[in-house]
């Protein structure tokens, strides 16, 4: 198991290095650069002066060597979109995204597992049919469109929740401790709901399939024969086995969730990694784009590693 883990760590490192190199090159191949943004009074000679000052007029390989050298020194560069060091911008944005993504991931697995189990138990029944149709509709909604729809309903037509931002831009700093917590929760509701709704469907489909595999098994029949209640059979015995593939799904869901936050954060003005990435790409903020991609890949790699470890811990066959 230890050797397997070490090998996975090396693989992960190679993935991160490759992702860094590819993103570094691709963003530089895109038209424009950090100083080609639309500003009427910014003359070409000033743009050229700034390019020279920050080394963006040098060949890409030279820029790459400079970048790697500074990263090894612990400096990720300067963000022109955020007007601060890349490290500082990431330090502020990453926890916000993890909060949003973490809560949404937790809720979507909770709801997805429950719905999936209920669907499998009542296979072919009214709940299975209605919930399957609903989830398929949600699953096929584009993230951006779904989020906009939620925003339109709950922030504009029926304005009961804030339309965006992480806290109330004005009042938050002046609220009491509990008031601030309530304010944060209120602002979390819409983006988390959007992200949860769009992820739950996939989880539920997986859980339903896993349960349907387990329910006909001999040990389930034995459990029923022993006189256990149906609740105990389903939620204690069947679910425990049917959760194993969900651990793998948890690792795989992370990249999708990170991708989803990019849209959700933009729609709900949530100042996390998604919004940071959108701003960085549109401004060709080279250092920030590269750093966001690297951090994203690290999160995905860690997610996969955790899934691997959990899988090994749960399933003795993998350990062997």
């Amino acid at each position: 198991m230890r050797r397997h883990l070490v090998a996975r760590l090396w693989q992960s490192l190679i993935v991160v290095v490759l992702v860094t190199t590819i993103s570094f090159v691709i963003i530089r191949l895109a038209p424009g650069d950090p100083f080609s943004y639309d500003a009427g009074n910014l003359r070409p000679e000033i743009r050229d002066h700034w390019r020279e000052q920050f080394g963006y007029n040098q060949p890409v390989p030279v820029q790459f060597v400079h970048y790697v050298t500074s990263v090894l020194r612990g400096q990720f560069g300067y963000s022109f979109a955020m007007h601060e060091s890349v490290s500082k911008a990431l330090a502020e944005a990453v926890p916000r995204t993890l909060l949003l993504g973490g809560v949404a991931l937790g809720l979507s697995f909770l709801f997805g597992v429950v719905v999936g189990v209920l669907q499998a138990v009542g296979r072919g029944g009214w709940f299975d049919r209605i919930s399957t149709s609903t989830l398929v509709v949600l699953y096929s909604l584009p993230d951006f469109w779904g989020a906009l729809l939620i925003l339109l309903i709950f922030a504009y037509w029926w304005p009961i929740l804030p339309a965006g931002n992480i806290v109330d831009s004005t009042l938050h700093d002046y609220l009491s401790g509990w008031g601030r917590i309530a304010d944060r929760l209120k602002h979390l509701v819409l983006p988390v709901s959007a992200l949860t709704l769009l992820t739950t469907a996939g989880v539920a489909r997986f859980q339903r399939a896993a349960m349907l595999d387990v329910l006909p098994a001999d040990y389930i029949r034995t459990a029923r024969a022993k006189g256990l209640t149906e609740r105990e059979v389903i939620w204690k015995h069947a679910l425990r086995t049917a959760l194993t593939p969900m651990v793998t799904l948890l690792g795989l869901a992370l990249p999708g969730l990170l991708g989803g936050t990019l849209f959700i954060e933009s729609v709900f003005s949530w100042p996390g990694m998604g919004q940071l990435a959108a701003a960085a790409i549109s401004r060709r903020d080279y250092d920030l784009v590269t750093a966001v991609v690297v951090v994203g890949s690290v999160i995905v790699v860690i997610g996969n590693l955790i899934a691997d470890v959990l899988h090994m811990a749960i399933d003795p066959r993998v350990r062997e």
Partner: protein
Amino acid sequence: MRKSFFLVAAFSAFAACSSKEGSQSAAGATGGTLIFASSSDADAIFPPFVTDITGRMLEDQIFDRLAEIGPDLRTVGDQGFSPRLAQKWVWAPDSLSIAFSIDPRARWHDGKPVTAADVRYSFKTYVDPKVGSPVAPTLTNLDSVSVRDSLTAVAWFKKRTPEQFYDVAYQVVIFPEHVYGNIPPEQLHTSDATRKLVGSGRFRFVKWDAGSRIEIVSDTANFRGRAKLDRVIVVKTDPATEKAQLLSGQADFMEAFPPDQIAKLDSNAFARALAFPQLGYTFMAMNVFTPKSKTVPHPIFSDIRVRRALSMSVDRVAMLRNVFGERGRLAHGPFPMTLGVADSTIHPAGYDTTAAKAMLDSSGWRVGPNGMRAKNGRPLRFTLISATSSITRGLYGVLLQEQFRKIGAQVDFDNLDPQAYLPRMFAGDFDAILGSYGTDPSVTGTKQNWGTAGIGGQNFFRYSNHTVDALLDSATSAFDPAKMKTYSSRAFQTIIDDIPAIWLYDLLVVNAVNRRFDTAPTRADGWWANLADWSVAPNKRIDRDRIGLAQPKP
């Protein structure tokens, strides 16, 4: 003998205004929070680096200039300018220097007095090549600034020009040496200090959460009187949702409400329209050279008859009404009507598709069996590029495509991401381009945009006519405003006659503001010119207006 200017009357008026402000404050006339939903964060807010609208808006609230330009934006001499940091100024007899007396009451937001040394430091920073300020090229006539005494700064000029006062008073914003003076010039761009501003304006800086929000609050001890609003918060908002936030009352202000949806503001309970005629105009320029080339003539647009025909085939009035309804303003030529030297008697050739078709026929572009024109086997087909950052230009692109189709010209409209659009614009890599020029109040801006000297810079489609150059030179060196206008008009007419572009509309931005705000008059160079005088009546205030200026809870 040049004028010396001692603004006793204006100063008295200001003093009266200040005392009135104090009584209003006591009566609760001040207060209110403006949430400005902005689709973009500021590019920079430290004056030498400001390039965008949000940055300029904030710069103008937090900092002061030596003198403030008048509402009519006159740029010749010092007429129309009113005191700001300088309470008076005296011209040297030879007009090669101006001595500015700093108002002794002026204080930086950290409490230190504003001095002449700050003025000298600001000028030095703007023109320092290591800084690379976008403003530097406009200050080439300024030789230096010296300090006569702690409250007198003398600006020295290389030569006498009609706009030398404007150059020094309008282009330069003063910032404190004791805060920024220790930062090496080449590090100012990335220094944390330039994100935490100390100014002297009626609002002071609170914080900038990059990519998220910027907050400024009223400077209650300001020597010009406190701002009537307590605070302004610029919140970065996704373009797709800023409208929803405004219409639901969660935000109070947004710039450039989509022109095709302005009618929604008339019936909305929260927001109303606030039209703002800008110093700018939009046009479709035709490249007379082959894309990317600087010498090879364009197969279509190098022929002035084709340019004229295309210009005449466009129903500019109908397009204006289609996009802006009744609110649009038709462009007259290479100048906005808000410019001081604008001439409303100038017009491009009128809409006449019959004449346009005849002109194309006579220049060899004949209609083929498919209804499209061709000449020597080459179809009358070209690409028109625009940037997605402008919804209005996008709408115009589609309308132009349809108008040209009617006379047998095929247009491929390419609406590009700004980062893809700008490099192509500067490289001349286009057949035709939809562009807007935002100008400064001076006719000098026209030289940069349409003069031969601007080629390689703002004159990105390389229009060149030496008659225009000479006329614009005469205009910018005329001390008599009437003569400046005459020369400018002749230059504008000559450009129109050359038809390098089709003039579409003057920039009229319809901003949207929450109905509870009483706004002050806007000015063509910025809707925010009198933002410090916006107010919210006590009976219209909502929770966020009543916070006051209390410190946030820890």
